[in-house]
């Protein structure tokens, strides 16, 4: 590893993770090179330099790394982990590909805290000269408090967008709110900024009379967290008048104990809810997808949307179990698979139809109010159910 004062660190994009990292690396005194926002170009670079059979998140990661290295980064930090999902190998594969491409960089694999506190500490100590365990712990605590505040802002925006009176107001308020939040340094400042920024989102002009649908979003974590990978699905649904909650958040996902402060339901509870359908870990978020769907159903949500990258094994297992949950808890589930396609029309069509379905189920509007049967020789009354070629209605 380079000496800490020469490190220019980068990481992949994942939703609002960069806001948390900006703060964390700032406190550690490391220069953070944020990759350019994920774009079509990022994806194209990633596709070009990734194994064809790898899933979408890896390809976007690769694009992020290449763009960040080209921007001057010299150190890559990537999450490790294990479990029956390809994610554990991402870092290793990505490092090898980048080295083959001729990039010079240090690679820092961050293994989960639960895999060993000492290794976890050593990773951070290599970034910051003279970092004590005590100081790291303090920094992590305050940075995480800020990260959670960022997550809460996005969570609130998902709830408010369905009611917004003027198209786009929530998005603009969220941007402002994140700016307020980013400026907060000390713990009391963070607390004050969190309250002020939440108020800003709540102050968006809203039509509370609007009849909104409630939909829960479940699935593979990266697809849920990174709007670029899911074609801004949350914004599209929000604009259709759908109140949203999702079961995975950045700080929930990286927190060591997975008490899911943002989602509001700890991992253990989700697992209990999943147990009648799936009683063991199948890797990734397979079990969480099932458990969270049950939770949303029990809370009276109108429907659930499941997102997964093409070829994701844990989510595919969940997909095949979800029809049972759907039946038992009487909740419609829409499964959407994402890959490197760039056209979002297919997704929008399915979402529109799903929203129509949910509205019809509420009884707000039946799909069809059959017009008066016509007293006519072409009428169907004569032929009963035999609507064959001779019938003209």
């Amino acid at each position: 590893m380079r000496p800490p004062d020469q490190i220019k660190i980068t990481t992949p994009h994942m939703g609002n993770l960069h806001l948390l990292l900006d703060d964390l690396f700032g406190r550690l005194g490391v220069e953070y090179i944020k990759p350019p926002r994920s774009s079509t170009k990022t994806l194209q670079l990633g596709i070009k330099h990734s194994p064809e059979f790898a899933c979408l998140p890896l390809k976007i990661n690769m694009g992020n790394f290449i763009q960040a290295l080209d921007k001057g980064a010299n150190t890559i930090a990537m999450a490790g982990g294990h479990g029956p999902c390809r994610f554990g190998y991402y870092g290793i594969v990505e490092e090898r590909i980048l080295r083959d491409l001729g990039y010079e960089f240090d690679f820092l694999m961050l293994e989960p805290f639960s895999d060993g506190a000492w290794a976890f500490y050593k990773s951070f100590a290599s970034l910051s000269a003279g970092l004590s365990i005590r100081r790291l712990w303090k920094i992590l605590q305050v940075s995480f408090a800020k990260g959670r505040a960022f997550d809460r802002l996005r969570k609130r925006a998902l709830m408010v967008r369905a009611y917004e009176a003027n198209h786009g107001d929530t998005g603009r308020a969220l941007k402002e709110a994140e700016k307020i939040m980013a400026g907060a340094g000390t713990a009391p400042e963070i607390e004050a900024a969190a309250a002020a920024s939440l108020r800003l989102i709540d102050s968006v002009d809203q039509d509370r009379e609007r009849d909104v649908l409630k939909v829960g979003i479940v699935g593979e974590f990266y697809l849920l967290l990174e709007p670029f990978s899911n074609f801004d699905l949350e914004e599209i649904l929000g604009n259709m008048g759908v109140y949203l909650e999702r079961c995975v958040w950045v700080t929930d996902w990286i927190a060591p104990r997975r008490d899911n402060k943002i989602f509001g339901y700890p991992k253990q509870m989700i697992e209990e809810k999943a147990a009648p359908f799936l009683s063991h870990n199948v890797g990734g978020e397979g079990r969480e997808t099932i458990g969270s769907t049950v939770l949303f159903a029990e809370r009276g949500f109108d429907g659930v949307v499941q997102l997964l990258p093409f070829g994701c094994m844990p989510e595919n297992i969940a997909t095949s179990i979800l029809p049972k949950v759907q039946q038992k808890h009487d909740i419609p589930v829409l499964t959407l698979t994402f890959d490197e396609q760039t056209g979002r029309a297919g997704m929008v069509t399915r979402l529109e139809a799903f929203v129509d379905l949910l509205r019809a189920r509420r009884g707000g509007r039946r799909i069809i109010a059959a017009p008066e049967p016509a007293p006519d020789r072409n009428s169907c009354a004569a032929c009963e159910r035999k609507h064959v070629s001779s019938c003209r209605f």
Partner: protein
Amino acid sequence: MASTSSGTTAYLGIDVGSVSTNLVILDEHARVLGAIYRRTQGQPIKAVQEGLRELTAVIADQDVEIRGVGTTGSARHLTGVIVGADTVKNEITAHAVAASQVVPDVNTVLEIGGQDSKLIILRDGVVTDFAMNSVCAAGTGSFLDHQSTRLGIPIEEFGDYALRSDSPAHIAGRCSVFAESDMIHKQQVGARVEDIIYGLCHALARNYLNNLSKSKELLEPMVFQGGVAANAGMKRAFETELGVEVVVPAYHHVMGAIGSAILALELELAAGETNFKGFEVTGLNYETSTFVCDGCSNTCEVVRIKVEGKTLARWGGRCGKWELQDGAARKTRAKV
């Protein structure tokens, strides 16, 4: 015939899909006054204009007043801008609406189009579940089209060929590549072309059911619609695979258009309230172009539609700054 006179109240429905463009005119009892089915041939605007022209010829002897217009299909937004639609709906809802109009107690709708296939489950006239496939080409009409070209048999005759078979050849249906190599194998060892075609119908039906029907309860009455429903071999293959009677409506090929016309009818617009721009749009000159916005790193591709040199609509950006409809930016959000 004029769109503004006080003739018979009528509703126009337009379904512009990847392969076909369908237009219908319904009266106020949702009966078909005229229907047009034509190929899109990669030019949706031209297809709509030509289709409208054909439609005016079909209803030339009737005095109709268009009270509402609905569009659907993958080019529904584009078409909506061009003709002035009152309702723009996705094709799943449109197909369900049309099916429950033809068979009011329908429980299952099988729909196979050119580029995608859908399965819609209804209970008491309400859609309760659906599945849509657009990833697997083996489950759609395009594959049949491709095979008809390869075999030199017009697609319209596929059904007759299939019905002459009493022992369908087994064709692998999981993937169009496997299916094609299986078909070639069967043909080279001397299987009758009738048996191969009927076998292909079975393969398609199996592929459809495997991909879409996952744990869904397929109850009768069952309606089969979409362009592929014209193929009697497919109807028989579904009936054999499922063991139930499958109903193919007379207007099976234009059900999406019928559905969108019914949705326009349900808006209950008063005379003159429609956005319809009239049949004159067939004579206007539309130009579409795309450009890449360099405002941020998203580098969105923005589509611009011009009519007679004036910008009519723009869309495609992620942020919404280019969004333009009927020459005006969208400020307030649509009523839900």
